[in-house]
């Protein structure tokens, strides 16, 4: 008899609980679960950030503890795997539990519309005021590029401006008596020779020139194709022609570059699975001696050198060669990055008043001190690394921890006012040389860097349709290279781009450009 009474009541209570839990979902997120009160100072800081490491740091991670001490409040980082980070931003923005600081990796519609509606603090004046010396950008152009039409919504994460490079199998060059390429023509010849002239000398026709993986995203994403097109002088996403911006892919130079790329693909000088190869396996054909050319960031050369060293000590120097921008038929142009990789933005729904905002900015300022930079990028001195002659030397026995630091905590680094952490002691002489070569190439290429003139501009139509628009051209490009469509098909794709909203994007960008550019 007793059971009879209790069961329905229990059901009703459980139902009511679920209902209350749900009804919180409707009100746009006034409070957060971070544990701080509505008005007073924050007693902890939640940060959402991506990580690349195998596993994210635990909550009692020593680096986290040390950073919390620097910040003066406990830091709670919500680590999200980098591969799904973009998805997570948009889901978190639509939910209730919004962190105090979010690393924003792209100016897509979810972020831009929220920011323009006042969902993120506009930081332009705060950052430029000088109240937070470590947040004053040493490169105002990059800061502007990270913003939305002149408004800065976050502290950007600084990156090298020149990263794109050509990585080549040194031993194959030596076997065939070839030099490092200086022009795009040289590169095509090397790709041909690597395919047809048996660079590994095994007598079998088992090699190809360039290794290109499937590239997620459309155009202007620093893919090998984008790199070649910039070398040809197509401009970087947009090109300024007498004060008017035109899309790079409408220029004759872009077509010329595509012709060159198509020639490489059609002649079999590129891996046959260029449209489907998993980018995570990009290094493998290079290591296994299937392909000999990679167009990617300079740091991949160091990565490859490391992998060769693991196979055979001292072999890297004879296997990996690095070159910078190549001269194209229309001049010398280098592809720069945007100079930043996302930014740390402060949502208004969790940081509710100016007092709290100033506190958060102060914390971010503290997280940009040299001490914090050392923590984020190297780890704990005396634990996983020591300092010798001013260089950081890692303890090989703590490699796992080091990987986690560099694969997670380093993602919080902004370094907008300069990076002063200890330089890393190169593990081998060759890696040291490679590092110096990188600096030298960066300096040379920077003089020829072609920046995207519209980097800091955000057009409404692009925000809503950008991905599809970029995909129209990106897909058409691959289809053209594959021989699925011809010039007319390419024209049709550009026409489709125009009518699907591309023309509107061009108009809007030009309006913004004349106002702000």
């Amino acid at each position: 008899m007793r059971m009879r009474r209790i069961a329905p009541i229990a059901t009703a209570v459980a139902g009511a609980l679920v209902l209350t839990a749900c009804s919180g979902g409707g009100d746009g997120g006034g409070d957060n679960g971070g544990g701080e009160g509505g008005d007073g100072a924050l007693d902890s800081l939640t940060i959402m950030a991506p990580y690349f490491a195998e596993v994210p740091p635990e909550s009692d991670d020593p680096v986290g503890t040390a950073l919390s001490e620097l910040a003066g409040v406990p830091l709670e980082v919500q680590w999200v795997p980098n591969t799904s980070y973009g998805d997570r931003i948009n889901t978190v923005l639509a939910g209730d539990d919004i962190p105090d600081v979010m690393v924003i990796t792209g100016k897509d519609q979810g972020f831009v519309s929220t920011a323009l509606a006042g969902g993120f603090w506009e930081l332009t004046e705060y950052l430029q005021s000088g109240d937070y010396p470590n947040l004053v950008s040493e490169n105002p152009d990059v800061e502007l590029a990270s913003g939305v039409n002149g408004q800065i919504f976050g502290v950007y994460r600084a990156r090298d401006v020149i990263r794109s490079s050509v990585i080549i199998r040194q031993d194959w060059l030596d076997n065939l008596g070839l030099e490092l390429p200086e022009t795009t023509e040289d590169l095509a010849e090397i790709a041909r020779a690597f395919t047809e002239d048996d660079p590994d000398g095994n007598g079998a026709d088992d090699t190809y020139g360039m290794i290109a993986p499937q590239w997620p995203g459309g155009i202007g994403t620093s893919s090998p194709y984008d790199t070649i097109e910039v070398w040809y002088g197509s401009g970087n996403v947009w090109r300024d022609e007498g004060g008017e911006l035109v899309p790079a892919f409408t220029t004759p130079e872009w077509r010329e570059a595509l012709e060159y790329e198509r020639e490489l693909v059609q002649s079999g000088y590129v891996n046959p699975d260029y449209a489907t190869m998993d980018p995570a396996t990009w290094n493998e054909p290079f290591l296994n001696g299937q392909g000999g050319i990679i167009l990617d960031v300079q740091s991949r050369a160091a990565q490859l050198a490391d992998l060769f060293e693991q196979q055979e000590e001292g072999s890297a120097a004879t296997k990996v060669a690095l070159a910078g921008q190549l001269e194209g038929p229309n001049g010398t142009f280098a592809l720069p990055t945007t100079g930043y990789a996302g930014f740390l933005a402060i949502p208004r729904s969790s940081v509710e008043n100016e007092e709290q905002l100033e506190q958060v900015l102060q914390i971010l300022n503290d997280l940009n001190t040299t001490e914090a930079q050392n923590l984020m990028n190297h780890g704990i001195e005396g634990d996983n690394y020591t300092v010798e002659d001013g260089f950081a030397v890692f303890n090989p026995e703590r490699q796992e921890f080091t990987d986690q630091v560099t694969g997670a905590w380093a993602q919080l680094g902004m370094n907008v006012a300069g990076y002063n952490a200890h330089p890393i002691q190169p593990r081998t002489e060759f890696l040291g040389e490679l590092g110096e070569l990188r600096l030298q190439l960066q300096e040379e290429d920077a003089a020829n860097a072609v920046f995207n003139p519209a980097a800091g501009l955000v057009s409404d139509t692009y925000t809503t349709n950008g991905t599809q628009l970029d995909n129209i051209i990106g897909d058409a490009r691959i289809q053209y290279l594959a021989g699925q469509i011809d010039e007319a098909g390419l024209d049709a794709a550009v026409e489709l781009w125009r009518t699907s909203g591309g023309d509107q994007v061009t108009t809007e960008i030009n309006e913004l450009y004349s106002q702000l550019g």
Partner: protein
Amino acid sequence: MTSATADVGAVDDGPLLRPEPPPNRRNLLGNLVRYRWLFLLLAPGVLYFALFRFWPMYGAQIAFRNYIPFLGIEGSEWVGWEHFQSFFSNPDFPRILGNTLILAALGLFIAFPLTIVLAMLLNEVRLQVLKRTVQTLVYIPHFLSWTVVVSLTGLLFAVGNGPLWTTLNDLLGSDTNFLADPDWFRPLILLQSIWKSTGWGTIIFLAALASVDQEQYEAAIIDGAGRWQRVWHVTLPAIRSTIVVMLILQTGNILDTGFEQIYLMSNALNRSVADVFDTYVYFTGIRQGAYSYSTAVGLAKAIVGLILIFGTNALAKRLKQPGIF
């Protein structure tokens, strides 16, 4: 219904004239008490639908607004049909609808009948050990995730060394990258679906087949019916209603073309045939944060699905088959 109307009229005339209500609708409370265990049994189902099916519909209104989470649902600007208009006038729309319908039709007309064929084949197996072994084996793929299935496909069709890539290209005398060729996208998707779900789909038909009256077979044998005739004149008519119901249910899911499978199998070269409603909603909604637009697309998909269900149901009725409603 008529008695209820009479009831209301009677109340208006005055309480004294009120006739005795029919016993089964005496009063709600009485019924609640009387059938409390049945109601309790019903509660979780009702709760599930209320919470997970009806409550979210409140949020579906963002399809008619420029939804910005920071402003909340109520605070976001009302724009009416704008997002629907921009989707229907978008060149993506006919392509996505076409791709979705073609994939759905392939599933319906090829994969679905195969399930029935396999179920009948299994039913004909007389050796119980063999039957059970085969049954277990064909169920296994169902438990693999799409990620695993797609990875397997990737390995089998890898350019240069995939065993199926080599065999097929030798047979066809071609040099195709099956994973990237738009002409091969649909066959691959269909093959994967068949491999993964045909076995599992047989369960319900096997149950229906088991309930077929054995005497009918005996009678048919006495009448001199061969194996094929027995299948055609006894087995198929006996499970006809199951087939029709399954077909209608299948049509309801027709537009759920399987997000994971298609997303994982698509790339720049086959996207023209690979874009379907589900992947489109993911790209625009989750990737780009176009919450309102993608919700509108999702709703449009639901409407197409609804039309298909009603269509199939009406068709079933016209063919003198019991529909599902």
